[in-house]
């Protein structure tokens, strides 16, 4: 039995709009072992992004516990959460969300500015990360000089450059053509197998989901039985 990396216990989340409570997630319980590659599927509005945000510690549950490693994410203060996130989590967005004024190199370097690494060490790590995603020859390009698939690879490099334990990807291929999506999935698989990253990936794409070890379905805020 491998170690558990992520554990959710009785997680409930609702939003308030004016005085109306909108429940989004109902009593979610599940565990993700270290090294897992999990695909999370479900219709739009079922709460997939919300679940990912809770695990990443950029949103807080209304009730319940979220453990990542030894940390109870729901109880950390904002600033410890930020520090924790920069070490433990790599986040990949559907729309890449690169900084348009920074080059590929600088975008990947951004999270490293929060570390104690010096310039040379940063450069080595950025080059390694961009090498893994196959963009060593695009380091000086700005996001608007790259294709969508290339932008997402830069975003993946940014997510892995700090060597995080857990990678959270929210529909990483949702905005890409078939071939680019295939490349990204190839890369995700490599990150899981070669670099032993634990991955939780939200996706609509059944072919993408096939790459995962486990597929879980979320519907109306409830996790369907495995």
């Amino acid at each position, binding site marked *: 039995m491998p170690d558990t990396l992520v554990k959710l216990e009785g997680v409930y989340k609702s939003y308030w709009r004016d005085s109306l409570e909108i429940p989004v997630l109902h009593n979610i319980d599940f565990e993700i072992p270290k090294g897992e590659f999990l695909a999370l599927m479900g219709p739009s509005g079922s709460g997939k992004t919300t679940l990912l*945000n809770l695990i*990443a510690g*950029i949103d807080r549950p209304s009730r319940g516990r979220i453990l990542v490693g030894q940390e109870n994410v729901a109880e950390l203060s904002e600033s410890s959460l*930020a520090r924790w*996130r*920069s070490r433990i989590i790599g986040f990949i*967005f559907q729309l890449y*969300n690169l*900084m348009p004024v920074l080059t590929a190199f600088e975008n990947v370097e951004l999270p490293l*500015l929060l570390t104690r690494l010096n310039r040379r060490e940063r450069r080595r790590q950025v080059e390694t990360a961009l090498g893994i995603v196959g963009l060593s020859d695009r380091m000086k390009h700005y996001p608007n000089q790259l294709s969508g698939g290339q932008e997402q690879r830069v975003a993946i490099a940014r997510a892995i450059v700090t060597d995080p334990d857990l990678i959270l990807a929210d529909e990483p291929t949702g905005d890409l053509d078939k071939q680019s999506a295939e490349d990204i999935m190839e890369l995700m698989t490599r990150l899981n197998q070669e670099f032993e990253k634990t991955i939780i990936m939200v996706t609509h794409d059944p072919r993408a989901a096939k790459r995962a070890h486990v597929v879980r379905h979320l519907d109306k805020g409830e996790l369907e039985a495995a």
Partner: protein
Amino acid sequence: MKVLKLIFRNTFRHPLRAGLTILGLAIAVMAFAIIRTTVSSWYAGAQAASPNRLVTRSAVSLVFTLPIAYEEKISKIEGVTGISHAMWFGGIYVDPKNFFPQFAVDGDTYIDLYPEYIIAPEQMEDFLKQKNAVIIGRRLADRFGWSLGDQVRLTGTIFPGDWDFVIRGIYSGAEENTDETIWHMRYDYLDERMRTEMPGRAGQVGSFIVQIADPSQSAAISQQIDAMFENSSAETLTETEESFMLSFVSMASSIVTGLQIISVLVIGIILLVLGNTMAMTARERISEYAVMKTLGFRPLHVVGLIIGESLFIAALGGAMGLLVTFPIARLVQAAMADFFPVFKVEPITLVLAVLASFAVGLMAAVFPTLKAVRTPIVEGLRIID
């Protein structure tokens, strides 16, 4: 530094918008400096006043005169080291628009009381030799292209008739703020003609200039002079040269107050210009700031980026504005020479402009900062541009 680079690139992300904002700030800062300089130039004459000089004039009003016989009495007061007299002439050179101050002064004593007037000794001798000689300031001579030996006719207003003069001396100021626009004619020229044409007005002067050894005695000596002529038919009012000059300036003080209000409004305009630009960037970058926070950056990092950008724009605009202020001030000086004997941008104006730019830079960042800090990450990520 990476952060400075990011601030720099953020600033010029929309080059046209950034350029217009900086230009707007520059123009406003320049306007601020020029208005402030106008106000301070207004007071420049008073600032140039010597603490060693008192002015005695009629207690009733500036247009009333005093008998010249007072001079003898005032000079006997202890602490008085020199005395002279002057009379406002108010003549017209060709056209009333050519206004410049003209004083009929005592040839032997007046100029000696003004060590800040630098004049060649031989010109001084010429002035004393000829009754209708005048000594004029360098800038006045430049304004009408007059040089030594030129004959100039003025038409009297207070003292009717045509008056012919010869320019015998041109003085320059020892200090930067010395007034170089004054026309000094001889009092005896005026007085002799009055004696024959209007005997009632002879022997009268507009003011006495009283030199004192010790400025700390100015109040006591002023009181003593005024007490001396109390209950006479021509009571006096004695004050320091500075407050005497300020009494002229304050006649126009509502204009000055207006200008001061405008200079504050200009700062308000700068705030609106920069505030608007920063509010636009705040809206556009909400999702970027959310991404940075997701990566582990803390609100303080984001605040630094925003304030840095706002201050950077304010600094660029302020610096540009001050750079153009100096050539503009020279143009104003040239165009308005009749109004302002001195038109110089003072250090305090520069300091105020820099402080105002800095304050505006900080204030314009308040709204975007609050917005960036208060927007939850998930909220920011939902906003897709």
